[in-house]
């Protein structure tokens, strides 16, 4: 295989004059993490809301929630990014559209919205499954104690359900970090985009992608270890995988 390896490339200056290639990759990682984290806040709050709504005894709300999940789950993320980036600003009233297009870091905010809504549908599915996995007696017991429906959800069902679905939520969190790479199609300079531009400038394809791969693996490892701690801390006693005393 005649490929000229050059691992020193990371310490050479990149042509966009922002520092060495290593520094541009690190700043890409910053954008990846920022996008993932802000989108995760959106996904978690909307997902918890929609997932809860889908278990309420109100048929039209349930249908609305189901429609929301189907809509965001059945269009590829790439197409959703394009819709938010190219289509939505045009469909809004002109002043709003112009405001969006002139936002600093427009591609970052678009990516956050697209990724957040896309993932919120998946979170909603987990939340619904978590609530429905609880014994029916729990809601009944809450009602018998005189709690209103919202109090039962607030004090009985949701605290249990959210703790039970923590492991699948961890993998959704890993997914949102990985999926943020799709935002390179709308011009967000996150980690994968930086690796690609490093490859285009320096022709060191495999060094650039190896570095990006290692960084993703490291992020993955940190999240998995951290969440393992959180899961152990929040596990429900008495469940398989829960603390035994």
């Amino acid at each position, binding site marked *: *295989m*005649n*490929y000229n390896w050059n691992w020193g490339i990371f310490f050479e200056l990149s042509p966009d004059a922002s520092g060495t290639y290593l520094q541009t990759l690190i700043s890409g990682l910053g954008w990846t993490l920022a996008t993932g984290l802000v989108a995760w806040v959106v996904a978690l709050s909307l997902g918890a809301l929609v997932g809860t709504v889908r278990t309420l005894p109100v048929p039209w709300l349930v249908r609305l929630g189901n429609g929301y999940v*189907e*809509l965001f*789950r*059945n*269009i*590829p*993320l*790439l*197409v*959703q990014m*394009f*819709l938010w980036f*190219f*289509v939505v600003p*045009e*469909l809004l009233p002109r002043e709003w559209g112009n405001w969006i297009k002139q936002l600093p870091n427009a591609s970052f905010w678009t990516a956050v919205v697209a990724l957040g809504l896309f993932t919120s549908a998946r979170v909603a599915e987990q939340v619904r499954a978590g609530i429905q996995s609880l014994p029916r007696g729990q809601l009944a017991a809450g009602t018998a104690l005189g709690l209103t429906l919202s109090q039962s959800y607030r004090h009985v069902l949701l605290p249990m359900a959210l703790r039970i679905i923590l492991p699948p939520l961890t993998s959704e969190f*890993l997914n949102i970090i*990985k*999926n*943020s*790479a*799709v935002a*390179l*199609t709308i011009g967000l300079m996150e980690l*994968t985009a930086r*690796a*690609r531009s490093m*490859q285009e400038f320096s022709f060191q*394809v*495999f060094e650039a*992608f190896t570095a*990006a*791969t290692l960084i*993703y*693996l490291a992020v*993955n490892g940190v999240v998995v270890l951290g969440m393992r701690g959180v899961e152990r801390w929040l596990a429900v006693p008495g469940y398989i995988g829960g603390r035994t005393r």
Partner: protein
Amino acid sequence: MFANFDFDVIARTWQVLIFQGLAFTLQVTVLAMAGGVVLGTLLAMMRLSSIKPLSWVAAGYVNLLRSIPLVLVIFWFYFLVPYIGAWIIGSPTPIKVGAFTSALLTFILFEACYYCEIMRAGIQSIPSGQASAAQALGLNYWQLMAHVVLPQALRNMTPVLLTQTIVLFQDVSLVYIISLPDFVTIASKVAQRDGRLIEMYLFVAVVYLVICLILSYWVKRLQSRIAIAR
């Protein structure tokens, strides 16, 4: 609101979009599913094997590919496959690999990791007494797998495998980043040529939505049929 729009662009170009773009996407999806399920099953057998190095190799491969973004995997294979091909046939220069082959290989190798996890769960869901019974009857490992375990595992896991295939169908859109002629890429080329981004991307979204809704409805029905049969 739609006054300035020209939905005529869809009427003019839908044949190219569907019969070239969507056809490419569907071909990659179906072939990658077939290859991915076969490779994924082999990986699952390796992971569950009592020969430790085999199980480590499979686990390492699956966990590696599952921890990096598909976008990065597509870039990796786009640049790697010509070199690997050159290495296999002993050519001194990287060989040229067609767009279709490249995409297909990428998705087989990537999706195999996800199919592997599904098949592993499927194999593990078979009671171990069946393996003992098969051994008592004198079946060897391959006979046990081929005649007892895999048919049941495959059957039990069919809905999950198909759901993963719907994900795969959506993921194929990402070949846009290396400009392979799939549905999204062709639509975006037409959109840019005619200056009709909005109409085109709305059309693409609606087509995906309809196809995926139909497929997932069908999987759900299949799931309830299988559930009753058991």
